[in-house]
């Protein structure tokens, strides 16, 4: 396997000079020449390749570019990959989308991205592409076409974008999922490309708790395929990365010698001041759990004999918003005895405003066994 560094050296020979980071990053070379009117000048294209495989660093770099750069005069293709992780959409619920107990035991992180869409699994066999443009130039069909052209021409794989903007091969087997983020002046479209992803891990990692009721964005589960299984041994992440980068640059600039080279970036605060803060926010509970839309979860809780009426258990529903408990309520309350109804009301009052954890039903079950003084007093009255 080629290392990224070696790869970029190889590409230099083919694609021209690698812009020194200091100049190419701050765009002194991408100013349009004053003699030509700006409107006719297409934005210069630049390819960035991440040297990190940490999902939080790479997502932070995306967000950093989105917030700090102008894409009026340049468009960027950012190519990156991550160590195993699950990435959920901006308005998704980690408990529903990811197999949290399994991932925790395996030390695999779950990250929330800023863009819309559904949950995906990443590993070293998956390549991510982010297309940054000015908002008015945002065109994800065009980006997907570029990828399909590369797959067709360079690897002989017949791929197409379907109506959901997923790239599929054969009998609608998904090899790429898409999502986007649109702002006032800038936009990005990013997508995954499964080359040699561990499909068994992918399936396991995305087995979330589907009994949770959500009003959030749903993931649409699709059969997936690896491009590596279709394209043979020539189809590797490194070769795909090189082909995509080259095509992106030369599509616009016919003479490859005039195209900018690839720029290796190190997504750290040293290179990009302010990135560290974004990364810390992405890792925080306020972002990962705290941005979870409202959900309800219902479980059957066994009752102690003193509370059990006609049934030895009760259905309890917990409602949470932004990761915080809003309400605990008893279902089929009419069937329950008064003590139980009152006790659940007390429990709801004391748990309201606390962070939601899957252990909450254990907590509720325990509290049902210890009648509170307040409750005892009330039953006397």
């Amino acid at each position: 396997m080629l290392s990224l560094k070696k790869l970029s050296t190889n590409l230099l020979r083919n694609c021209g000079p690698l812009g020194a980071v200091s100049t190419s990053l701050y765009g002194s070379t991408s100013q349009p020449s004053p003699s030509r009117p700006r409107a006719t000048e297409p934005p210069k294209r630049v390819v960035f390749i991440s040297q990190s495989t940490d999902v939080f660093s790479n997502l932070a770099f995306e967000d950093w570019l989105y917030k700090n750069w102008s894409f009026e005069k340049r468009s960027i293709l950012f190519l990156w990959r991550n160590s195993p992780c699950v990435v959920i959409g901006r308005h998704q619920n980690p408990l529903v989308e990811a197999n949290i107990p399994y991932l925790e035991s395996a030390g695999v992180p779950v990250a929330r991205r800023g863009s819309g869409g559904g949950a995906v699994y990443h590993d070293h066999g998956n390549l991510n592409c982010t297309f940054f443009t000015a908002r008015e130039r945002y065109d994800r069909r065009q980006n997907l076409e570029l990828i399909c052209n590369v797959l067709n021409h360079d690897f002989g794989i017949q791929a197409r974008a379907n109506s959901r903007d997923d790239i599929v091969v054969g009998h609608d087997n998904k090899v790429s999922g898409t999502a986007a983020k649109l702002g006032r002046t800038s936009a990005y479209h990013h997508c995954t490309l499964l080359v040699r992803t561990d499909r068994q891990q992918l399936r396991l990692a995305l087995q979330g708790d589907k009994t949770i009721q959500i009003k959030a964005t749903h993931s649409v589960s699709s059969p997936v395929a690896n491009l590596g299984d279709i394209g043979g041994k020539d189809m590797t992440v490194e070769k795909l990365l090189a082909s995509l980068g080259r095509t992106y640059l030369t599509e616009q600039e016919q003479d490859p010698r005039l195209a900018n080279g690839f720029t290796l970036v190190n997504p750290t605060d040293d290179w990009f001041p302010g990135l560290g803060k974004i990364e810390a926010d992405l890792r925080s509970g306020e972002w990962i759990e705290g941005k979870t839309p409202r959900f309800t979860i219902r479980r059957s809780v066994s009752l102690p004999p003193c509370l059990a009426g006609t049934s030895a258990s009760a259905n309890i529903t917990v409602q949470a918003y932004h990761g915080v408990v809003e309400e605990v309520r008893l279902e089929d309350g009419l069937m329950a005895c008064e003590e139980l109804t009152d006790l659940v009301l007390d429990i709801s009052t004391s748990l309201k405003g606390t962070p939601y954890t899957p252990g909450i039903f254990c907590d509720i079950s325990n509290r049902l066994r210890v009648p509170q003084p307040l409750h005892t007093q009330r039953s006397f009255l």
Partner: protein
Amino acid sequence: MARVLLSTLATFTHKVSPIQLIRTSTAITHAPRYLSTTRGVLSERKYTEKHEWVAVDGKIGTIGITNYAQEALGDIVYIQLPEVGTEFEQMEECGVLESVKAASDLFTPVSGKVTEINSAIEDRPELLNISCYDEGWLFKLELTVPSELDGLMDEAGYENFLQENKE
């Protein structure tokens, strides 16, 4: 007679909601519904170049996105609104609209403190597609800098802006 009627209808529609003329076929059918949105309590809507609108009643401004914006976004699946009590400056990011895999940042066209959010659209985001000027309003805020309204476009100005940008 018919000619008179037609011309009356044209002026009527134009007065009510020139924006709707973009979709000429639906503008006439929907005219009565849009009439109800300008029922006297709210001032005329003001627009930004980024397709937000604000209608003011006293110190309270109601914020939404325009028909052009909702058509461009497509089916809205989730709306993250600001929290009541939060203060925002003009053009500050204050929420997110998610449509077919794209999360679009929402910006406030005027400065103010959020007084109310439209909880109906939290549960039914599609209302934004169905009725962006009426049931699909997003949030209300108490204006802190009312003079900002002078910098926004009126309906005719916004319609011209859309036409110019089409070409």
